[in-house]
């Protein structure tokens, strides 16, 4: 889904200023680099890949409450490696970070967790599948049937997820190119979870149901030096079609990529330039102007839609800040999904 985890390397205690992405795009120090033609091996590939620098398990869900209101949740576990191996104990070079968000039409809640690898406080196992940090978890016998939990100090959720359809591989069979220079990552998704469960809000509980989307991605050097941020869409249309589309904003021009997924789960990757993104309206969020209404067009699928934030203030005020929230889709196709924007 996104490359924000890069920031994770810049741990706040060390007070490093984020000098664009240049410092990180420069060297990979013994880490593996994604190669085209990789053959995925499941369930092992659901687990961590310590020889790659960054990796994430990224789940978002659009939910409808029994009260008829729209909600969105985000559950993310990032792995960031300081060195390309793992070892037990405190000196494991693997670090973990969890982000959880819950967006209602009028409020946005978020929480963040940090942990060291090697001691059991956070990690991922492939079979049975479990990704956890502190008491947050996403687990099940297989990745097709999961229970999901996260808590902040004033919110939380307990959900169950059931996969409805196959895994989808982006780019060239999961080899997803991120820039014209060829930076790439391994990237696959489970875009079709049916979700049900309970949201814990400060003043009430809400029973909800809806659909969820899991992104899995790992890499060592996914951004080009000139790239400053991105806009990322994962949309589910009423027709049953789905779209993953992103734009990496670079000094030498944008780089776009998209995957069109049909109701039966078959997918088609669309090359750079196939999809276009136009901000229609910005909102003042966390003292900056963030586009919260977009026009997205994909001529190859006769797609011309307006994507509008359900709650313009869905700002993740975590160590590395970004916008992430549920969106409503109208125009040639109707539906809903999730939008992530960084670098504003």
């Amino acid at each position, binding site marked *: 889904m996104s490359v924000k985890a890069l920031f994770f*390397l810049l*741990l706040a*205690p*060390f*007070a*490093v200023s984020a000098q664009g992405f240049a410092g990180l795009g420069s060297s990979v120090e013994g880490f593996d680099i994604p190669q085209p033609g990789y053959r995925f091996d499941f369930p092992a590939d659901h687990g961590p890949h310590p020889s790659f620098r960054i990796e994430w398990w990224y789940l978002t869900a659009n939910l409808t409450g029994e009260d008829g209101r729209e909600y969105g949740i985000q559950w993310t576990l990032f792995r960031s490696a*300081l*060195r390309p191996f793992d070892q037990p*104990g*405190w*000196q494991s*070079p693997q*670090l973990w970070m969890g982000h959880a968000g819950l967006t209602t039409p009028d409020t946005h809640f978020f*929480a963040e967790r*940090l*942990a*060291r690898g090697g*001691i*059991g*406080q956070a990690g991922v196992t492939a079979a049975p599948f479990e990704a*956890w940090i*502190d*008491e947050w978890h996403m687990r099940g016998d297989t990745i097709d049937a999961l229970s999901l939990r996260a*808590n*902040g*100090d*004033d*919110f*939380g959720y307990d959900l169950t997820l059931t996969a409805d359809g196959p895994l989808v591989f982006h780019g060239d069979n999961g080899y997803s190119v991120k820039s014209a220079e060829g930076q790439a990552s391994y990237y696959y998704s489970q875009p079709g979870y049916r979700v049900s469960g309970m949201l*814990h809000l400060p003043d009430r509980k809400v029973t909800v149901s809806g659909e969820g989307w899991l992104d899995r991605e790992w890499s060592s050097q996914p951004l080009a030096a000139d790239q400053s941020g991105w806009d990322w869409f994962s949309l589910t249309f009423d027709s049953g079609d789905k779209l993953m589309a992103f734009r990496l904003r670079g000094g030498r021009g944008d780089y776009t990529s998209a995957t069109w997924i049909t109701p039966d789960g078959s997918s088609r990757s669309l090359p750079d330039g196939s999809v276009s993104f136009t901000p229609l309206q910005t909102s003042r969020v966390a003292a900056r102007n963030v586009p919260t209404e977009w026009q997205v067009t994909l001529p190859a699928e006769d797609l011309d839609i307006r994507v509008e934030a359900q709650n313009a203030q869905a700002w993740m005020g975590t160590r590395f800040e970004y916008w992430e929230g549920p969106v409503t889709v109208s125009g040639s196709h109707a539906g809903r999904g999730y939008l992530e924007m960084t670098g504003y």
Partner: protein
Amino acid sequence: MIGTVLQALWSHWRWHRVQLATLLTGIALATGLWSAVQAINAEARASYDRANLQLGLGQLDELIHPSGRIPLETYVALRRSGWQVAAVLDGRFDAGGRSVRLMGVDMVTYPALPALTDTQGNPPDPAIVLTAPGRLFAPPDLAAQLAADPDLPPIIASTALPPGLVLTDIGTAETLLDLSGSLTRLLVLPEQPRAIPPLDQVAPDLRRQAPEGRIDTARLTDSFHLNLSAFGLLSFAVGLFIVHGTVGLAFAQRRGMFRTLRALGVPLVTLSQLVLAELVVFALLGGALGLVLGHLLAGALLPDVAATLRGLYGAPVQGQLHLRLEWVAAGLAMAVGGTLLASGQALWRLARLPLLSAPGVQAWRGKSGHRASAISGGLVCAAGVAAFAMFDGLVAGFVLLGGVLTGSALVLPLLLSVTLGFFARRAKKPVTQWLWADMQAQLPGLSLALMALLLALAANIGVGTMVSSFRLTFLGWLDQRLVSELYVTAENSEQGRRIEAWLEPRADAVLPIRNVELAHETGPLFLYGIVDHPTYRENWPLIAAAPNVWDTVRQRQGILINEQLARRADLWPGDRLTLAPGNTLTVAGVYSDYGNPTGQAIVAMDLFDEIAPEADNRRFGVRIDPARAEQLAEALRAQFDLGPGAVVPQAAVKAQSRAIFEKTFVVTSALNVLTLGVAGFAIFTSLLTLWTQRLPQIAPVWALGLTRSRLAALELLRSLVLATLAACLALPLGLLLALILLEVINVQAFGWRLPMFLFPSDWMQLFILTAIAALLAAALPAWRLRRVPPADLLRVFANER
């Protein structure tokens, strides 16, 4: 009019420059000493606060385990149940023969890390800090010392750390301390998620402790700062005696001028206001001088205070002084307040000055004045005793001290008067009779200065006796406590075991020294395990013991505790002490322990192993024929490739302990000497004041045939006799002070009671010093007397009435 009056007022000072200098010096001395102490205290407190803030110490609740060690699994279990806690592993490691405090934190989750940068201001790469070998962060001076040690991870000097502390990532700390898989405490972060289970469901062994439940640096050192403050206040009071004397003199000399001004039509209110304004200006000037003095003094003393606080309490204090605005304001306020207080009497007299009163001779205050002063002195004494009887604690101890000192000072004039009367009645020759009577007559004018001298002398004797008694006891205790010929510290428990096995056939005995930090309601408690050996039975300094104390300990039924713990928790032989749930032992003995302020206890080694199986086994005392000790030490170093600090002979340990001790009381002695100096100056100003009123009294004696040089010699003698009398009275008061310091203040401040020893040779020295000071103080008046033109003496008769 105002300008003219001011001019007239100022003319006095222009003609009496020495007097002006004395006044300003008095104010400056009073303000200076007091401000120096305040600056030192403020600096120390700021250091504690900074240290605490920098690392988030003393602000968050902590989870602790009765054994002092929290298994890593418990931390993970807490985290995985939602509890937001931060892991800390504290310990000490030896580097170059010095024990260094190490704090290992999970640098990824610790809530209050200072901004750690290298000397160029660059943050270090997380990868090298978090993975082996890691990095140590240390304040620059410590970093420089540690850098030479090749066994340590690379050091990064950081000014953001409190002195004496090495900060590192927990993974590095674990390796360095050889404490894999355990933690010492968990900080409970302020924000906890919803729906976390109760602590006893997740980690029933852990106890949650609020910050105020711990004995922190501030509380430990409070007593030390109170001590300093008391000294500062004493200096301030003594300084005010000087101000009082000078202002009194200036007013007496200006009565004629006041009368003239009033007669010329200056309203009393205006005159009083202008005189008041004049005093305030002098107070501000003197205060400013005092602040400069105080700042210099504090700067000079602070490094020693810092060393003292580190040595006594392990409290981090930087040896650098910062100028604080509130300190300047407080110092000036003290100067103005003190000056007005000391001039109160003079101002009061001015306000009631009859318009046409004669520029008179000082009214005699007779025995009734002495009696009133003595009665109030008795009352102040009684109030001090009553306060101590009713309240407990260090402050009550100081109230007792203050009450006894002030009360005794107030009784002094009566005692002196009675003594002088006694001698006067026995004097046969007329000149001797006159001398005694003259002293009696001057007593009111000198009594304040003599009180100051009494206080300074008593403080000197009292504090000197306390420090010297402490030194004797401490050295004796060191001899008892440090009996092993060699002290060995291994790098880790594994090497410890090998060293122990190697030493076993070569030494007379190998005595393991193992300890663990436990939590007790009175604060941290260090538990030691010992093996049964004559070394302990014959030498250990017990101050209270049950019968068969060592057998009870060996049979695991008894525990030995140190005096601090005994007094703090009121535990004595026969009482029961609970170490951990289900582990209660009878106190078999109490031993003296002057090495640290914390509680300590000793149990049999096998019992210790059960309580703290994971404790280090790195330190040993080795008993061997002293003649062979050095040889064995060499062999041991060679065999295990140990550094020079790893095998230390007894003499070196003792020397180090002594050095720390001597540092501890440097400040006390410095303040002591300064106070005495101020008191000497007070006598000087008083005599100078009296001098101007002396002529009418001396002229008749001169007229009767005594030469001026004889009179001058008698002047010196008089000062000497009065000072000696004050010194004689100061001796019992000083000893009483020492007794209170040893029996009350020390017990409250440090937790130990020391026996009192007497040092007559020190008193002799002090007496000689006092005599010299008294002679010096009288030298100028005596010299003037010798040189006074006979015409002046004759004029006395001409001017009379």
